[in-house]
């Protein structure tokens, strides 16, 4: 006796239509249509038996979406369906896959859904922990636990951007239900599900650089002064610095303005970024100030290797590779001892490179 068959038969009197299956009730008898066959003049017992023998999966699926998921927002339902490939595979294939578990990725989250008696169970963990035994990960069941897990990176440093590409692993939300899944995902990546849904529906309200900068007030209104002339090279630099896949798991959909796309790619993230975020705005304020300066000519003497080393240091910092450079690996330009040697040799007591003052006194 399965709860889901009971639920289907209970609901059948009002009519059911779900994924190619339909039950109608007329003149005291039921009719069951499946994609392959039609059964007519059924009593309630016969309908029960048929669902058990011929349409168990359809009953199970109907029960899950109608009773377990129930009356929820469209974005929540669409996300749950996307997780298991509802629109991608017919029912029998979908169920075959669900028996073994269907996995997908959402930013740095790996979500797995599997069939369970009368419902589905989900598992959420870091993508890097896909093959790690659940027993070796710290288990959580409250979606709000994701708040703390997403606050610090693996070095214990504060992550100001929830969608930063530096989520730490080592945890798992095992055997959670559909509601908990969506809440957990939305706690790791706030507003990602509704924005993804709006994009699918063609109603995502993308706000481009010019729109977003235009509405800034107070200390951020200065950014508008950075937009000089017709070019958008500076906005390309902002996007390249902040919105690259290596930095943020969202896919940048905002451009310069309605008619002008940026030259840099928006990335491959599964869910979209609909406008420059507060971190981009804060950084752009600083860059607006810095870019207001006129260039000057400085004269240094560097060996070719020293010039190359300066470039390597910038590359290593920009790519966040500093922690990967081994302490004694003096073959790396950004090695700490190499860098300290460069400072010892080339900086004067005021920290000026090659003794050349920064300000033109």
């Amino acid at each position, binding site marked *: 006796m399965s709860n889901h068959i009971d639920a289907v038969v209970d609901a059948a009197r009002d009519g059911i239509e779900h994924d190619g299956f339909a039950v109608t009730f007329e003149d005291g008898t039921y009719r069951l249509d499946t994609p392959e066959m039609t059964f007519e003049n059924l009593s309630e017992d016969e309908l029960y038996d048929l669902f058990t023998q011929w349409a168990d999966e359809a009953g199970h699926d109907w029960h899950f979406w109608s009773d377990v998921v129930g009356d*929820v*927002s469209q974005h*929540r339902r669409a996300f749950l369906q996307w997780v298991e490939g509802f629109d991608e595979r017919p029912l029998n294939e979908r169920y075959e896959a669900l028996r073994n578990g269907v996995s997908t990725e959402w930013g740095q989250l790996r979500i797995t859904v599997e069939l369970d008696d009368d419902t589905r169970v989900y598992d959420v963990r870091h993508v890097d922990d896909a093959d790690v035994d659940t027993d070796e990960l710290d288990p959580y069941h409250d979606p*709000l636990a994701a*708040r703390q897990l997403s*606050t*610090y990176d693996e070095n214990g440093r*504060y992550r*100001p*951007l*929830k*969608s930063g590409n530096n989520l730490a692993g080592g945890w798992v939300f095992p055997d959670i239900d559909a509601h908990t899944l969506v809440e957990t995902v*939305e706690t790791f*990546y*706030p*507003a990602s599900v*509704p*924005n993804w849904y*709006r994009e699918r529906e063609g109603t995502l*309200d993308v706000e481009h650089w010019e729109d977003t900068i235009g*509405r800034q*007030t*107070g200390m951020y209104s200065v950014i508008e002064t950075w937009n000089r002339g017709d070019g958008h090279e500076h906005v390309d630099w902002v996007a390249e610095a902040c919105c690259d896949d290596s930095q943020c798991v969202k896919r940048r959909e905002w451009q310069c303005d309605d008619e002008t796309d940026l030259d840099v790619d928006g990335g491959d993230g599964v869910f979209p970024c*609909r*406008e420059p*975020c*507060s*971190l981009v705005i*804060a950084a752009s304020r600083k860059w607006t100030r810095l870019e207001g300066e006129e260039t000057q000519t400085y004269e240094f003497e560097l060996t070719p290797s020293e010039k190359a080393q300066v470039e390597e240091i910038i590359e290593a910092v920009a790519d966040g590779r500093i922690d990967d450079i081994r302490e004694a690996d003096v073959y790396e330009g950004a090695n700490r001892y190499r860098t300290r040697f460069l400072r010892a040799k080339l900086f004067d007591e005021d920290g000026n490179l090659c003794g050349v003052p920064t300000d033109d006194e």
Partner: protein
Amino acid sequence: MQALVIVAHGSHLNPDSSTPTYDHADTIREVGAFDEVRTGFWKEEPSIREVLRTVEADEVYVVPLFISEGYFTEQVIPRELRLDGWDVADWDSDGLSASHVTLTAEDVPEKTVHYCGPVGTHEAMTDVIVRRAESVTGDPNVGDGFGLAVVGHGTERNENSAKAIEYHADRIRQMGRFDEVQALYMDEDPEVDDVTDYFDSEDIVVVPLFVADGFHTQEDIPEDMGLTDDYRTGYDVPAVVDGHRIWYAGAVGTEGLMADVVLERAADAGADIGDALEVVREKTRATEEV
């Protein structure tokens, strides 16, 4: 269905900035007064810009976790929430009396948004300041023989900033519970640096009217008052300065009872909160005694 959305500043640099917001949201979530409780931030995610679309309920009560009326409550938050037809005149406020206004928001036109005044100017905030004094002294009857300093940022840019401090200091003074009550500021006179000049009482409780503990409440104010030469080395509570015992409370916004003010704001705007106020008062008091 009704939802509560608490909006706050947040920070790119300090993870503790959003902690009180989350704590109060959790307290209210647990009492079950709302179908949903969400948080949105100026500097964190979800942004205030996008928080309304994360809400499934059709009645939404938005409460700003800010101390005073001004730039954020009047310009930034309504703009970022995309409140249709927002006009600060609809609040008809003297800088302290903003209660709520009911509007719709451009990106979720199907929802009704009740935009509330900030927590800091609600009369219930006075009780939180007093509770803070009780918490830091560990004495539920603290008052006799004690002076109380309510400390604000103070700024020449926004006169409402000082109004909230004066308002609560006046109300506590009228209670007659503490021997002396004084409003002090970081950036204007009378300054918190000279706290001991303003009190005869040997014991002084200092409660900063800030939402979160951060740079000002953890570094500036303790150093300015002379509790410590270097905030990193910490300070005692109480610490003796110029012959007075200073009971420094840290940001009032971290007090559990703050959840009560958030609820009061939503209830004033028409939210049906049942007996949540009583439950929160009991719960936040019990938590502190543990």
